[in-house]
């Protein structure tokens, strides 16, 4: 049997349990909606303006740096699996790869992108 079928079962059951729990709660709980109850919570004040506001660019920078690093480290997994059998050449290769990664990190650091300014 394909392994992924079992993963699909896990995902299905993993969805089933929370859906079931929330469904039972929805079935059992009282349903008396009113406009005051359904307002957005803002520490007792009435909410001002839209909350889907614009965010600071810093979040994007962190996500960006993360994206690049994530892709590169994920690529290292096939390398790590075969490392034992391939000897010193593979190690040097991987070290070059990681060093290029670290250069990127040093560059962003030097440019002050990693500051939460």
């Amino acid at each position, binding site marked *: 049997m*394909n*392994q*992924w079928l079992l*993963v699909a079962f896990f995902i299905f059951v993993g969805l089933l349990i929370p859906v079931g729990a929330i469904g039972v709660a929805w079935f059992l709980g009282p349903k008396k909606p009113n406009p005051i109850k359904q307002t957005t919570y803002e520490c007792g004040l009435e909410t001002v303006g*839209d909350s*889907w506001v*614009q*965010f600071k*660019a810093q*979040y*994007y*920078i962190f*996500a*960006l*740096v*993360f*994206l*690049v690093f*994530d*892709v*590169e480290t*994920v*690529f290292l*997994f*096939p*390398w*790590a*699996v*075969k490392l034992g059998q*391939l000897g010193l*050449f*593979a190690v040097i*290769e*991987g070290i*070059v*790869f990681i060093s*290029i*990664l670290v*250069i*990127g990190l040093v*560059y*962003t650091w030097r*440019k002050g*992108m990693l500051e939460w300014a």
Partner: protein
Amino acid sequence: MTSAQIIFIIVAFFTLGSGVMVVGTGNLIHAALWLVSTLFGVAVMYALLNANFLAVIQVVVYIGAIAILFIFAVMLTRKEIRDQGPQLNKGWWLSALLAVLVFSGLAAMLWGWEGMSRTAAEFPSGFDSMSELGTALISPNAYVLPFEVASVLLLAALIGAVYIAFNRK
């Protein structure tokens, strides 16, 4: 029709439906979330093709990083998140026509090809795609150069993107 075919058809329609929603929906956050579901469908495709590594990095890289980046970018480029005005160009029907033409052209081309009904080759016994991929990526007479160049490409992308997005005035 076998069970594999039924699963394929369900996944394919799910993925394509989500893809249509990506290009069709007005709210960009919704579009990004539909993109996530499309990407997940593609990951299932990889799983159906026994490409374990691709299936997992599809989820890790695309859903875990690229989709998040899209959502962040949408939040950053908005004063009011709900789009005003039309989402599509004036000549959108031309684009639709072109897309349909491309699809029918590709389909027609595939129709005449003799490899169409080819079925998957069996894996040799003891075949571990993960370890083969490791060998292919790092052994000197295989794909070591693309592997290293990919890291240089990503370094360039990082430097370029950081420079562009964050040029403080």
